[in-house]
């Protein structure tokens, strides 16, 4: 998981970069709401040129799963 991806996630989840790691949990009741999802989708589209599926992303429960989604594309 590289710094570029961590920075993207930190901005999307409004968290400190230092707190972003592969085990970070994505909880729909806390940090993984629709705006966070849209932020990640738009960030990945802009920075990686990859369009993620909203439903696939919504089902991710750890940051590492989001990273895996990108790598599969």
């Amino acid at each position: 998981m590289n710094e570029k991806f961590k920075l993207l996630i930190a901005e999307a989840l409004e968290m400190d970069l230092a707190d972003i790691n592969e085990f970070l949990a994505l909880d729909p009741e806390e940090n993984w709401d629709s705006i966070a999802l849209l932020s990640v989708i738009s960030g990945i589209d802009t920075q990686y040129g990859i369009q993620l599926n909203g439903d696939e992303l919504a089902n991710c429960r750890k940051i590492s799963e989001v990273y895996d989604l990108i790598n599969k594309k």
Partner: protein
Amino acid sequence: MLISQISKQDDVWVALFQRNNSVFLDFFMRVSILFTRFASTSWHSNRYITSRYELSKLAIFAGATGPYNYCFSHSKKLSAVILSSECERVSIDIEPLERQLTKTLKVKIRETFPSLMLSELGIIMILECLIKVQPVSTSFGLVAGLFGDVPIEIVKLGQDNFAVNFKDKRFYSRIYILNNLFICITREKNQFPLNLEYFND
């Protein structure tokens, strides 16, 4: 708890409340709604239990004994419910005033709605409400709406009042500021109060 009537001509009510993680209260709420028409389908989630419980209280307060439409919105420990006892399609979305959007998301939104005089967060809230008020409601709908994959037109009617055109249907939205929250309400009729009024719980 805030309870407000959206329109005196018809029965549309909003309640805003803070969720509590008390185990005792959670148990009490589950029992309270278990054998009512407000029984939750998501028993694992405290926020849905709380929302259903508050919906049941709001329905009693509003005297809604017949069919109804409703919608929930959640933000951290706060939740909101909107109820129409006349089955008008209604929806609600709440977001904290301090909610920040990323630059890339703002750019995407502006690409889709370049001339609309409304903040990017306001646009997202209106789209969320539109998706909730429609029969189809998934995060894919929001992505498609924001990225311009489906034709949605938002027209500013007044300071905080908007018409939302989607296919052959028109809805109306208004955005309020209250309790450090943006509160977006969408309905089929263009009737909104200037402010949301408090009632004591």
